[in-house]
């Protein structure tokens, strides 16, 4: 039976999904105001990249891509810890999480 499920999912679909997720992340980063949402958008972008890594690892039967994913996850975890700490600090200091009001670096 040549059904939809017996076939392999083509490579391009994975990549397309990865690109869509990445773009959603970028758009979320650009248009969202809440700092936590922005932070989540970054995570989304990272995971989109992770998806393309594992895709290629599967396609070429190479383990390198998977190792890379572990690295990215690890760094993302560290970054999440630091980032959340910053967010808490910012909230304590300014009582807001709106990114466009956190503009102390402005000239």
């Amino acid at each position, binding site marked *: 039976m040549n059904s939809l499920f017996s076939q392999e999912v083509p490579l391009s679909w994975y990549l397309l999904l990865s690109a869509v997720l990445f773009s959603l992340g970028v758009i979320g*980063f*650009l248009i969202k105001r809440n700092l936590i949402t*922005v932070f989540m958008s970054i995570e989304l972008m990272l995971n989109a990249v992770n998806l393309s890594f594992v895709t290629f690892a599967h396609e070429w039967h190479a383990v390198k891509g998977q190792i890379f994913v572990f690295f990215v996850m690890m760094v993302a975890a560290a970054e999440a810890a630091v980032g959340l700490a910053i967010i808490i600090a910012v909230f304590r200091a300014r009582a807001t999480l709106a990114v466009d009001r956190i*503009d102390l*670096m402005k*000239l």
Partner: protein
Amino acid sequence: MNAYFHLRLIPLAPFAGFLINGILGRRLPKWLVTTVALIAPLAAFGLVLIAVLGCFGMGKGFIPAIASLPLTETCPLAWIDSGALHIDFSFVLDQLSLVMLLVVTGVGFLIHVYSVGYMSDDEGYARYFSFLNLFLFFMTVLVLAGNALVMFVGWEGVGLASYLLIGFYFQKKSAADAGKKAFIVNRIGDFGFLIGMFLLLANFGTLTFAAIGEKLTANPGWQGGVLTIIALCLLLGAAGKSAQLPLYIWLPDAMEGPTPVSALIHAATMVTAGVYMIARTHILFDHSPFALSVVAIVGAATALFAATIGVVQHDIKRVLAYSTISQLGYMFLGCGVAAYSAAIFHLMTHAFFKALLFLAAGSVIHAMGGEQDLCKMGGLWKKLPVTFAVTTVGVLAIAGIFPFAGFFSKDAILYAAYTQGANGRVLWFVGLVTALLTSFYMFRLWYKAFLGESRSPDVHPHESPLSMMVPLVILAALSICGGWIGMGRFGAFLAPSTGLKAAESGSAHLEVILSITAVAVALLGWLVADRFYRQRPGRAAQMAANNPGSYELVLNKYYVDELYGYTVVKPLLGFSKYLLGWFVDTALLGGGAWLLGGTATFAGALLQRWQSGNIRSYAAWLAAGAAAALLFIVVPWSTVWPASLNLIWKIAGH
């Protein structure tokens, strides 16, 4: 040679004094400053004396045996080594520099001693002595120089020291201006010296005096031409430093400095550097009769010109300044008739008696509480007996009365001029008239300052301290017997350096007649001064009133300063102010700088909007950049570009 005796130690001793007093002087106690300031020139003088003893075959113990002059000492490292150009930092000790060194360090030391008394109350005591030591350093470098470039180092250095010391009382505007004037006028002369050096390099490939001399001796037929130009350039340099026409104007103003400075720098040593330089490069002048006669004419003209101005000056130091210019003219006259050793002889005796006269004038000024006007002095001989006695010696010496020092040297120059042919007679006559004027104005000074009745009854002069008296007495002794060595022996000693001048038509008989004439003229000057200022004191003023035009002309120094002001200084200032200052500086350079800065500021104002402080805008730019990079990598530009260009081409209608 002994291991410890080096020529370089002679300049280095005063230099060490300069460093110590210049850096630490303000913090050291006064007695230590004095000790350092006196030891430095004394050490230099001692080294020169040791060299003298060594030269006369007394090399024993710590005195080096100097077998033969010239003694050369070269710095082992090449100073300038660039292609064909090779210049060493070298010192040469020969008969000429030996005599000059004795004068410079000897008189220099005496004036240092005198300054201890004269400057004792001054705030800038340490500064004064550090400058004085600096001067001695550069002067000894100048004298010892083995090539023209080393000489130039000393030459510029003494100019610097002179500038610093003329403007010593820099709070006074006239003193600061006088320093600037001296420096700028000297620059004109230095320009000539520099051009002369470049021409020497171009034509000889070396600046070493000995090498130039050898080349010229090997080519006796090489006369005039470029040698004349070189000699005239050097003469311009010498005229600037030695205050000759037309560059003499700085010297009278230089009297703004402390009086011992006037004695050391502007009478005894620095201003004679021009004469020394001509004597040092005399071989060039010997190969150019034209340049030599220019030297003689400049010298004679300066001697007469300055003497006439000296007759009517009222400031005691200015009388002496014009007399210095006049006596320097004599030395140039001596050089101009190729009697270099006579010129150096006069340089030496002049250093003695003019330093004496200046220091005595300093003693008078000191006693009068800063008064320099001759008309307010008078009758000082009772109050200042020692000063009076030494001034009398100095006046007799400069007037050329037998057997004082000035007689021998002046006579040697006049004799050399007289035996120089028909033109020489004219020079001799000018020299004789100058001698008459010299005698007159010096005795005028003598009468006005020391004899007659006191004209300032409320001033109570007192004799100066011992440290000022001792140098005066020593210099007085030198002014009496400095000439007794005689021109013959002196010339014979200097002959290896300056050559012996063969008199064309001289004889002992003629020499005696000329000497008697010179002394008679000097006595005549005395007689006239006596008539004017002792017997009938009102006569001079009456004569001045009868000839107001000529009196004003001379009193105002022939309006030369004003003439230079209108013809040179004013146009130059206008040129600097409007063309250079306004157009070039403000408009071109300032405008250009403003344009550059403005562009940067404007671009910054535009670009700073990027730095919005908004994270999302940064992220958007980041994303846009990433997208652009992606586009650049993904799109196959090598095929897209030609295709799109083709398309445009077709649309355009081809």
